[in-house]
Each structure stands twice: as structure tokens, then as C-alpha cells.
């Protein structure tokens, strides 16, 4: 009887509890499926403070729109579709006009000029909630630097909407190529990330390879055949002065890359038919051997914290990727898919490694976790190689070369999801890109 009463009371209590829980609280639903599509945004021309600033105000707005649209995460609503007009930077925004064209983000700005100085002010608005994203911000600089100011505005907008850093105010060093494949002229060049402002750092008298930016973006390492042997040079980007990194006579040194501290260089030396990885202190010139296997070890790249190094090796019989402590030691193989893996580069976020993969006669650019898991191929073509990471670790730039004697190398960029594959505009052929950090 006692048990019967207990069961009855328990049942009544549960029914009462569930009924009250259902009645008293809000309706609860869980959303687990959304959509992935570019966010529509509008950038009306920035408001100039005087008529002669109108040109630069319009150009800045166009560069901002191109930067954001180029990410593949945003889609610009063209000016022809705008209903609203922004004629006063300080006037309240008429959100209904922008909602009507389905703009989810709105960027308004103003440009004022004083002599050679240009000041850009801007605000970012969440149209549907009618709220400003962050606070207004302004950048000032010389008139010649208007593109950099536009890139900085775009970086700030990108960061406020996505929550991660931008990459627009950055530069790329690459090998500029001209002429047919059997007589190709190569020289180092540097440009904005979007292909603007190209400048040449070397002439084409000697073959140059594999330029790599320093973590601060002020120096570039590269390999040159100027002496007949491949040797590594350090070039100061500001002064265009260079010096050779002294290594042993009669050896070939190549595949250099800066360590995150900017004071150490890791690279490969070929000696007596064997290639191993070394590190060198730039100031003292002291070298340390990091691998000593009879196989070919090359392409070192350090993790952002400087503790680990990924490199390629054929010690297993085929070219694969390995990770080991940055000071040398036990190496762990991380690539196990079909084909050959090379040119590994550690992401600036530290979470992924980009690589080139060759399989069944095609080349791919791919990414994998640092333990080799979750491999994902992003591209496929006759020849893709040499990935480099954008400063925010979201985009990869690489070289794509077409078939045939007249085939030309071109730079491409792709999002790490595999979306938004697009060529990078360069004058003539281009290969071996290296992305700089964000400029100060």
C-alpha cells in the first residue's frame, strides 16, 4: 500500500512539474541548420568635405568594396540599386532605404583633405537591427597613401563583422616571370595583396627563387643563383639592400624561411648528395643541424609559437610531411594520403598546415590539421604549388601554371573552405608568393 501511494504521488508530481514547465516558460527551439552565403552590403561613396576631394572619396569607397567582395564572404549591392543617399556623414541613417534592398551591412564614410593630408572617417551599421557595429573610426595619411587607408578601413569593417582579423593592408612578395619557359626571366617583385603598386626588388640577371617575408614584413629571404650555386640572401625591403647568408663553401643552400622570432632562419643545405635542415642565427651566423637522415629533408616551416617545425622528407620512400620539435628531434609523419606531399606552411593561427599534393598527375593545394587529420584539398589543376597564408589564416595564395611551352605561371587565392578561388592580378607571370603580415 505504501509503495502504491509513493508511485501515485511521484506520478502526480511529474505530471504537475512538466505541465508547469510547459506553461510557464518561453517557447524554446533549437536552430542547428543555417545558410552560408555572402552577406549583402552597401558602400555608398564617401562624403567629401570639399569638391576636390570627391575623386579620392569615391576611389576609397571602391577599394573598400573590392576588398570585402574579394573575400567571398560579402556581396556588394551596386550603387545603381541604392535607394537611399548619404550626403551627410553625421545625419541619421534611413535604415528602411537599405533594408528595402536587403543590405545587411552599411558602411558610411567621409573624406576631408588638407593640403597633402587626407583623413577618412567611417561607420559600420547593422541595417536590420539599426545599430552601429563598433564605434566610428578615422585614419589620416598622405594623399598618396589613400589605398592603404582604404585597406585599413576594409580591415576594420571585416573584423567588426566577422570577428577575425583582416588581411587587406598587407603585401605580397613574389617572383615576376617573363619570357617562354625555356628562357624565362625571373626577378623579385613586391605588391599590395590585391596586385596594386608593383615594385621590383631585383633585376633579372640571375634566377631567383622562393622569397619569404620576415615576421615583421621589413625583410625578405630568397634564393639566388647569382654565383652559380643556389645561395640565400636577406634583403631589406625599405632600402633594397641585401646580404648573403654565409654557409659552407661548395654547398647549396635553399628553401629558407624565418622563424617567428625574426632572428633565426631555417633552411636546407645540400652536401654530398644529402639534403638536411639547418637553422642559423642571422646576427652571429651560427648554424645548427636539425636533421641528419640520408634522405632529402627540406621545406621547413615553423609553428607560430616557434616550438614545432613541419617539413617534407622522402625518408619513407615517397615525399611526405613530418612534424618535429623546432630544435630537432623525433619526427612524426602526418601525411598518409595517396600521392606526394610538399611545401608545407604552418598557418599564422597555428591550427592548420597548407601543402602541395601531387596525385594521379594532378596538383592540389590542401590543408590539414597539424596532426594530419581532416585533410581537405582545395584546388586541382595541371600545376598548383607553393601556398602562402594571409595574415589572418583564412586565405591561401599559391602559384598555378598552365600547360605547354607557352604556359604561364599565375597567382591565385582561395579561402580555406575551398570557396572563392580567384586569380590575383599581376603584370605578366608570377610565382612563389609570400604574404606579409599586416602593415603597421
Amino acid at each position: 500500500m505504501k509503495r502504491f501511494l509513493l508511485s501515485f504521488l511521484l506520478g502526480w508530481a511529474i505530471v504537475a512539474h512538466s505541465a508547469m514547465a510547459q506553461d510557464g516558460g518561453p517557447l524554446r527551439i533549437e536552430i542547428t541548420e543555417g545558410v552560408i552565403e555572402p552577406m549583402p552590403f552597401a558602400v555608398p561613396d564617401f562624403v567629401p568635405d570639399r569638391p576636390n576631394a570627391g575623386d579620392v572619396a569615391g576611389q576609397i569607397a571602391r577599394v573598400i568594396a573590392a576588398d570585402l567582395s574579394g573575400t567571398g564572404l560579402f556581396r556588394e549591392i551596386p550603387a545603381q540599386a541604392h535607394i537611399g543617399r548619404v550626403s551627410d556623414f553625421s545625419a541619421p541613417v534611413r535604415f528602411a532605404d537599405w533594408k528595402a534592398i536587403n543590405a545587411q551591412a552599411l558602411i558610411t564614410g567621409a573624406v576631408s583633405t588638407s593640403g597633402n593630408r587626407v583623413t577618412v572617417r567611417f561607420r559600420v551599421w547593422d541595417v536590420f537591427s539599426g545599430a552601429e557595429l563598433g564605434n566610428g573610426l578615422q585614419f589620416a595619411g598622405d594623399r598618396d597613401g589613400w589605398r592603404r587607408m582604404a585597406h585599413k578601413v576594409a580591415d576594420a569593417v571585416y573584423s567588426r563583422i566577422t570577428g577575425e582579423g583582416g588581411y587587406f593592408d598587407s603585401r605580397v612578395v613574389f617572383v615576376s616571370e617573363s619570357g617562354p619557359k625555356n628562357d624565362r626571366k625571373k626577378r623579385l617583385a613586391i605588391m599590395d595583396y590585391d596586385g596594386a603598386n608593383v615594385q621590383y626588388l631585383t633585376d633579372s640577371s640571375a634566377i631567383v627563387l622562393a622569397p619569404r617575408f620576415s615576421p615583421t614584413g621589413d625583410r625578405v629571404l630568397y634564393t639566388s643563383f647569382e654565383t652559380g650555386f643556389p645561395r640565400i640572401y636577406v634583403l631589406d625591403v625599405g632600402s633594397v639592400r641585401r646580404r648573403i647568408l654565409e654557409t659552407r663553401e661548395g654547398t647549396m643552400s635553399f628553401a629558407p624561411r624565418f622563424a617567428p622570432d625574426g632572428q633565426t632562419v631555417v633552411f636546407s643545405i645540400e652536401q654530398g648528395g644529402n639534403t638536411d635542415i639547418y637553422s642559423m642565427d642571422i646576427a652571429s651566423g651560427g648554424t645548427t643541424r636539425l636533421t641528419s637522415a640520408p634522405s632529402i629533408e627540406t621545406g621547413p616551416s615553423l609553428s607560430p609559437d616557434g616550438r614545432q617545425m613541419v617539413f617534407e622528407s622522402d625518408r619513407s620512400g615517397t615525399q611526405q610531411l613530418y612534424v618535429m620539435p623546432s630544435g630537432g628531434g623525433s619526427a612524426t609523419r602526418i601525411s598518409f594520403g595517396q600521392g606526394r606531399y610538399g611545401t608545407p606552411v604552418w598557418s599564422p593561427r597555428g591550427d592548420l598546415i597548407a601543402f602541395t599534393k601531387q596525385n594521379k598527375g594532378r596538383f592540389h593545394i590542401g590543408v590539414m590539421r597539424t596532426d594530419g587529420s581532416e585533410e581537405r584539398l582545395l584546388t586541382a589543376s595541371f600545376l598548383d604549388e607553393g601556398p602562402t597564408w594571409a595574415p589572418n589564416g583564412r586565405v591561401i595564395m599559391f602559384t598555378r601554371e598552365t600547360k605547354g611551352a607557352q604556359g604561364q605561371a599565375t597567382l591565385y587565392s582561395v579561402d580555406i573552405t575551398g570557396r572563392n578561388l580567384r586569380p590575383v592580378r599581376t603584370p605578366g607571370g608570377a610565382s612563389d608568393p609570400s604574404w606579409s603580415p599586416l602593415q603597421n
Partner: protein
Amino acid sequence: MQTGTKISALAHGLLLGWAFLGGVFETDPLPFEVQDVSVISAEDFALMTGRSRTPEIDAAPSEPEPPLSNATPEVTAEPDSPPVRSRPEAAPEPVPEPLPETLPEPAPPAPVAQPDPQPAPVPPETETAAVVPAPPAPPQRPSERIAPEPVAPPPPEARPDPVEREEVAPEQQADSTREAQEASAPEEAATEIVTEAEERAVLAPTRSPRPAPRPARPAAPAPRAPDPARTEDAVAAALSEALAGAQARPATAAPSGPPLSAGEKEALRVAVSSCWNVGSLSSAALATTVVVAVSLTQDGKPQMETIRMVSSSGGSEASAKQAFEAARRAIIRCGARGFALPAEKFDRWRDIEMTFNPERMRIK
């Protein structure tokens, strides 16, 4: 009470007791057929379909290395051992069973009066029904929009709109009362991101592994005698928890009327999902789940000032802010014309808490 009545009641009682206890009302159970089923694992299915898989990586290092001196780091000079954690090898090509040789036609046996030989005992054939997952979907075409359901490219003249409508042209002479409207169709969408490397992927199975052997039948659990003390404790604990929960809730503002049906909730969920764009979120925000509260007006439109983040999990404050902003945009955009909710149940959906969990969107 009369003696006859007592005897009658006793007799009826005995009769009913005999009927219940004697199993008069019990019937034999309906025939029930049991068949063993083996489930193909994801690994087996991947092998069967020949799709490339990423290797499983253990946390432990693959092979021990000798300790290294501090002066010059030494690395093993031998080629490394075969990878321990390599991806599972493809199933070996099945060796065909030797076919029975064709024998010459036997001569008709002479009629010999011999007893028929006893047939060799044939082992009972193991019947294994394999539950095969649905065949993989054909390769998708790359699309700028990734949505839960794939959408074919809309007609070129159609205006992008979640609702598909055919064009109605105004006709001067027609008696039709239909209003003129512009053709609209949903935007093209795929369910997954298709990279350039995946566009030509062949998903047809290239080999079929042997069916797995029948799994061992699990031993039946031994019946446990109920522990009266433990049962009473559990009952008392559940009772107190239920009562405490019921008392903790305020007794006021209890909406009346029937609750929303599952279909009505699903329609609301789908409506919000179609506007929840996570394409521009950072990877940190894509790892953050936010619970957003909103109050609706009677026509189903969200009241902007009531939208707030109740809680978040899985990310930093900054990533929660980004995730909340995306959720808020979804609620406002798709609720701009009012969510399709039954007006008679307004009390039930006046206040809503939506949990935006992007876990499944990370693997698109």
C-alpha cells in the same frame, strides 16, 4: 444481508477470481519473427565506396626515438618505419572462388538397386541482412549559397525570394481576378561546399567488401533482484526533485490553451534557419552556441528591443557577440513580415528562446 445474497456474492467472486487468475483472458502472443541484422560501420562503407579518408591520428607518438644529445640534435638516420597510423588499407581484391569445373555429361546411370546415399549434412546457411546506408548523393555543383536543402538554379527572370511564385501578367480582357506578380524563386543552393578538387569526384562504389560475420549474440543480463531500500530512495529523490522544480517556478503568467504542435515549431525553426547566415562568421564564432530570447508581437513580428543574448557557450565573449549578431539578424530579417504562427496560441509563442547551435555548419 440475506444468506442467499452472500452465497451468490461469494460464488461470483470466486468465479471472477478464477477467470482472472486462471488465464481465461490471456491469449497467445502474436507470432513475432526475429532476424539478425548487422550494421555496416562508417569505415566499412567508406571502403566500399572508395572515398578518400583522412587518417585517424592517435595522440601518442608513432614510434619511439632514441634520446638525442643536446649539442647536435640527431635524427634517426634510418628511413622511418612504415606508418603505424596509416589510413586503413583498402580491402584486398577479392579472390574469386574457384569455379566448379565443367564435367562431362555423366552417362545415365545404370539402374542399380542400391539404397540412396545419405545426403551430406549441410550446415545451416547463415542469413545476414546488412543494413546498407542510403547511397551517396551525386556530386553537387558548386554554389555560392549553402543551405540545408539543395535548390536548383532558378529561372533567369525570377527574382530571388524564399517563396517560389510564377509570373502573372496583367491581362486587360481577361476575367481573371489574379493580381499581377513578378516571378520569384529561391536562390540556387547546395548542401555542402564543393571545392575545385571535389568537383569531379567519383562517388560510385568501386568494390564491395565481404559482409561482416554475424556478431556474437550478447549474453542476456542476469535478472537482478530489486533492492527495496534503493527503490524507495530513488522514488523519494525523484519526488522531492519534481516537487522542488514545480515549486520553484512562478505560478503567475502561465499561458493557457493548447501548446504549439511539432509542425508549428518546425515551421518556425525552418523560417529562422533560412535567414541564419553563418558564412561571414569567424571559426571561433562558429564554435559558439548562443541562446537568444525574443518577444513577438501578435502578428508574429519580433520586438527589436526584446532581443537579447541569454547565454553562450563554447567561445569567448567576442565570438559570442559575433554569433549573437548573426542570430539577431536572422530573427529580424525573417521575422520582418511576421512568423507564420497560429494567432490563437499567442500566449504560447509570445516569448521565445532560440538556441543557435552552429556545430553542424562547421563541417559544410
